[in-house]
């Protein structure tokens, strides 16, 4: 289902944490970044890994997949 509206912001934070944990996402501190949505690439990477439609957008199916119980090891690199 769609997320209840008030949880959208929480979901963005959840998704960022998920991508940091499992897809080596690092939030760009400097604002010169060219990316409008720095997370989009990492969302695409995660969608591709799980065989979801690769849109780069945090849609419902992507968020549902992020909320599944899982292993704590990253999907794209080992623990440093």
């Amino acid at each position, binding site marked *: *289902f*769609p*997320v*209840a*509206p008030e949880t959208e912001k929480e979901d963005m934070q959840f998704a960022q944490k998920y991508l940091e*944990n*499992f897809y080596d996402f690092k939030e760009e501190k400097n604002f010169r970044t060219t990316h409008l949505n720095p997370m989009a690439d990492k969302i695409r990477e995660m969608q591709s*890994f*799980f*065989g979801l439609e690769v849109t780069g957008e945090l*849609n*419902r199916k992507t968020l549902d*997949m992020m909320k*599944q*119980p*899982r*292993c*704590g*090891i990253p*999907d794209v*690199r*080992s*623990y440093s």
Partner: protein
Amino acid sequence: TFPRSPRWKKEDVTFRILNYTPDMSQAEVDEAITKAFQLWSSVTPLRFTRLYSGEADIMISFASGFHGDFYSFDGPGGTLAHAYPPGNGIGGDTHFDEDEFWIKSNTHEGYNLFLVAAHELGHSLGLGHSNVFGALMYPIYMARDTRNYRLPQDDINGIQALYGPPKESPAFPPQEPTEMTPAEAPTEMSPREEPTEVTPSERPQDCDPHLTFDAITTLRGEILFFKGSYVWRKSPYFSEIERDTISTFWPSLAAGFDAAYEIDKKDRVIFFKDNKYWAVSGYNIQPGFPKPIQNLGFPRSVKKIDAAVHDQNAKKTYFFVGNKYWSFDEHTQSMERGYPRKIAVDFPGIGHTIDAAFQKNEHFYFFHGSNQYEVDIKNKKLVRTMKSNSWFDC
């Protein structure tokens, strides 16, 4: 594998269980972990020896939250466990999140320790995650029957790329064969509230001109149309109508709703069947339900309701029973005085019973048989009549 494919440079690997979860007996934990090791030794030349003191290659422990490495656990759900690739010190070690509920077999809620241990030990031996759905090394937990669990081919390929196939002798030092006591026979699914004799039937065609519905509700901007065990889902986010079954979303709810409505301010949908009702939020059924419809103020003579619709502006909910309707005040949580009233009197042009109803954009949509009536909420005037399935873009 992990970057640079770390692996154990020997065939004899040691392990030690440092502590236990209170969720299972120690014997069950030992059995689950031993069986997980056997899974890997049966397809490689590796041999695993258990130590009871000192430093082993693979140190196994249960912990919650921060537990001394840089990767704290996160409470129930989310991350279940993690493990380190082969190496010295923390290399190979496996940690299970004690905030999860660990179980021996899938007969009740919780995470199967054998399955998760087998996955994590895959990491301890050098495997990374697989994106092959159904592989043991797939990152997301999937409950499955573990009685005769066999390692999927993708995992065998991965581990044998690191260690090769087993030698002819049994790879795991001969041990008391730990037969997995046959998991208790799966307990009967908790009986649904009402035994549903919903005869398995073909899903009705979307564009059948005689299509009728049992109940309809909005849900977070979408519209759900119910008939028997089927759901049609119209979403503003997707052009296509999605076809599902009730059990897809609420496995424990009986099929064949009589009525449904959404209180969007509470992110809550109420389902009615016979003389009971349930409240759900998204996929989650609220605790304490079902409740008898008399809790809402219906007289005992009312055994079931035909339809319900919530007026989000007026904060009232209309319940339709036969040719009459009640108005429920969501503020006072009680039926309004002076009800029931005749539908035909207050909603001119709707001269019969109502099967289903929902509200959208200042209009009520009432369904009777294969016809649908659009009514302006403010003046309760009938605006137009359509076919019930006009929302399916036939």
